[in-house]
C-alpha cells in the first residue's frame, strides 16, 4: 500500500464512531450544545430561540468540525450528523428542523450531493407536515466540478462555513425567513473553492484508503469524501499548487481589481497548520497581485475529510453587508469571536 495512508484509528467499534464522537462532543461543549439521541442530532443549548429564524445543516460525518462545531450563538441552531460520508436520513433531519423552529421558520443549508439533497427534501416535507416552514439553500462552491450539465452539479465544500456563519449572523440579528435565504444565496453566489489531496483517507468501516496515490502524485480538484479528484499530477511545491487552486476560483468569480474578499485556507484534516499558512501566504500574494484586497481571513481545519492530507482555497467576494455579518459575534465549539 502507498505511503500517506493510515488505516489505524483512535476508535472503538467502527459502527459506533459517530455516536461516541458526538456524545464526547456534547460533553465537552455543554455550554453551547445539547445532544439528542434517537434520532441523533445536535441542538443549540436551550433549543430554538423564539421569533428567530432557525438554521439547520447536516450531512455525512467525517468533516468535523462541520457541522456540529458550528452550532451555537450566531451560527447554526441544529446539525444532523449522518454515518461517515453518508448523508443523514429524513427521520433524523425532520426532528432537527422542527426543534430549530422558533416560530419564524427554518432554513436548511444543504451541501449539493444527491444524497443530502434527497434526504433533506424528504425531511423538509415531513417537517412542513408538522407545521414547520422550511426553506432550503444548496451550497455548491466547488469549482473542480466544471460542467454541471454533465454532473450532479458542483459540490458543496469549504464555502459552507461562510454560508453558515453569515446566514447565522443574519438570523441572529432578526432577519426574517426570506431575508436569511436571500443572504445565504448571496454568499453561495459569491463563494468558490478548489482543493488538493496529498494523501487519501480511510473510512472506518472500509478499513482501507479511499484511493491509491504514489509518493510523488497528488490529486487536484478533490471533494471532501475521500473521492479522487479531477486529475492527478506530479507532486509540486506549495506555491505552484496554490496557484493551481486559486486561479480557477478567481476566474470563476471574475474577481476584479479593487474588490475585497474573504480568503479561507482550509485543511483537509491531516495537514499541519504550518503548511496551511504557507498556502495562505501564496494565495494572498496572488490575490494582491491581481489588485484584490484580502480584508478577512480564516486558516484552519474547518471542513475536513477525516485524516486526509491536503487543503482547499476558498474565496468569498465581500461587500459591506457580508463583511458586517462575518464580523458579527459567534460562539460555537469551533468558531468564536
Amino acid at each position, binding site marked *: 500500500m502507498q505511503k500517506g495512508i493510515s488505516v489505524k484509528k483512535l476508535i472503538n467499534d467502527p459502527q459506533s464512531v459517530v455516536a461516541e464522537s458526538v456524545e464526547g462532543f456534547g460533553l465537552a461543549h455543554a455550554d453551547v450544545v445539547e445532544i439528542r439521541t434517537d434520532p441523533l442530532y445536535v441542538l443549540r443549548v436551550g433549543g430554538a430561540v423564539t421569533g428567530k429564524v432557525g438554521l439547520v445543516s447536516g450531512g*455525512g460525518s467525517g468533516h468535523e468540525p462541520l457541522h456540529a462545531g458550528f452550532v451555537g450563538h450566531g451560527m447554526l441552531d441544529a446539525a444532523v450528523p449522518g454515518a461517515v460520508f*453518508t448523508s443523514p*436520513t429524513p427521520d433524523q433531519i425532520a426532528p432537527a428542523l422542527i426543534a430549530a423552529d422558533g416560530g419564524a421558520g427554518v432554513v436548511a443549508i444543504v451541501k449539493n450531493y444527491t444524497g443530502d439533497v*434527497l434526504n433533506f427534501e*424528504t425531511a423538509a416535507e415531513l417537517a412542513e407536515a408538522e407545521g414547520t416552514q422550511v426553506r432550503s439553500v444548496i451550497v455548491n462552491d466547488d469549482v473542480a466540478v466544471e460542467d454541471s450539465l454533465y454532473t450532479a452539479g458542483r459540490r458543496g465544500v469549504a464555502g459552507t462555513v461562510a454560508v453558515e456563519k453569515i446566514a447565522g449572523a443574519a438570523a441572529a440579528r432578526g432577519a426574517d425567513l426570506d431575508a436569511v435565504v436571500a443572504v445565504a444565496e448571496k454568499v453561495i453566489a459569491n463563494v468558490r473553492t478548489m482543493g488538493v489531496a496529498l494523501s487519501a483517507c480511510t473510512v472506518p*468501516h*472500509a478499513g482501507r484508503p479511499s484511493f491509491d496515490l504514489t509518493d510523488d502524485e497528488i490529486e487536484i480538484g478533490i471533494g471532501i*469524501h475521500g473521492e479522487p479528484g*479531477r486529475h492527478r499530477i506530479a507532486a509540486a511545491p506549495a506555491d505552484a499548487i496554490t496557484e493551481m487552486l486559486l486561479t480557477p476560483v478567481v476566474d470563476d468569480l471574475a474577481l476584479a481589481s479593487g474588490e475585497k474578499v474573504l480568503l479561507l485556507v482550509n485543511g483537509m484534516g491531516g495537514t499541519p497548520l504550518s503548511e496551511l499558512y504557507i498556502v495562505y501566504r501564496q494565495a494572498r500574494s496572488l490575490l494582491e497581485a491581481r489588485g484584490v484586497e484580502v480584508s478577512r481571513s480564516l486558516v484552519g481545519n474547518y471542513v475536513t475529510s477525516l485524516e486526509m492530507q491536503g487543503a482547499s482555497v476558498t474565496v468569498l467576494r465581500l461587500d459591506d453587508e457580508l463583511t458586517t455579518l462575518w464580523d458579527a459575534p459567534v460562539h460555537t465549539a469551533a468558531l468564536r469571536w
Partner: protein
Amino acid sequence: MTLGPEWALDWTRLTAQAMTEHRAELIELDRQIGDGDHGENMFRGFSAVVAKLDALAEPPTTVGDVLKLVATTLMSTVGGAAGPLYGTAYLRAAKVTMVDDLDGAGVVAMLEAGLEGIVVRGKANPGEKTMVDAWTPAVAAAVAAARDGATPTEVLTAAAGAAEQGAKDTKDLLATKGRASYLGERSIGHIDPGATSSALVIRAAAETAARVAG
C-alpha cells in the same frame, strides 16, 4: 404459480444476506468512483429491515406490506443517495402490490413501479451510470418475458439476468449523475455500485421465487 407475502419475506431476507455477503465488494466498487460507503449503507439498511421483520407481531398479509416496511426502514437507516432512491422504489412497488399474490403481470408492474420511483427521485436517464442502468434492462426483460406468458419466476429470472448484464455494462459508461460524475472521464472503466446492488436485489427476488415455485 403466484408469489405472495411469504415470498416477499424470503426475498427480503435473501436480499439482506446478499448485502452482507457483497458488503465488501460494494464498498470497493464505491471506493473506486464514489465515497466507499455503498456496501456499508446497504448492509446497515437491510440489517435494520431484518430486525424489523424479526420483531413483527403479525405476519404481513400482502406483498405490498412487506415492501412498504422495507421502504420506510431503508429510508430511515440507509442515508446517502441510495436511501431515498431505494426507499422510493420500494414505496412505489409497495403501492402496486397490495395484493395476496402476484402473477407475471403483477411482477412486471412491481418492477416498473420500482424503476419509476428511482427515476422520479433521482431524475437519471439510462446511460448515466446509475442504478437506472440495471433497472431499465430488467424491466424491459420482464415486460418481454411476461408478454410471452412467462411465470413470475421466469419473469424475475429474465429481469435478474438483464439487471446483472446492465450493471456490468455500466463499466464503459461515463457517469453524469451521482458522485461518480465528479470524476468525469475517470469514471469510465468502473462498474457502478448502485447498479450492482440493484442486480443483487432482483437476483434475490428471482432465486426466492424459484424456491417457492419448487
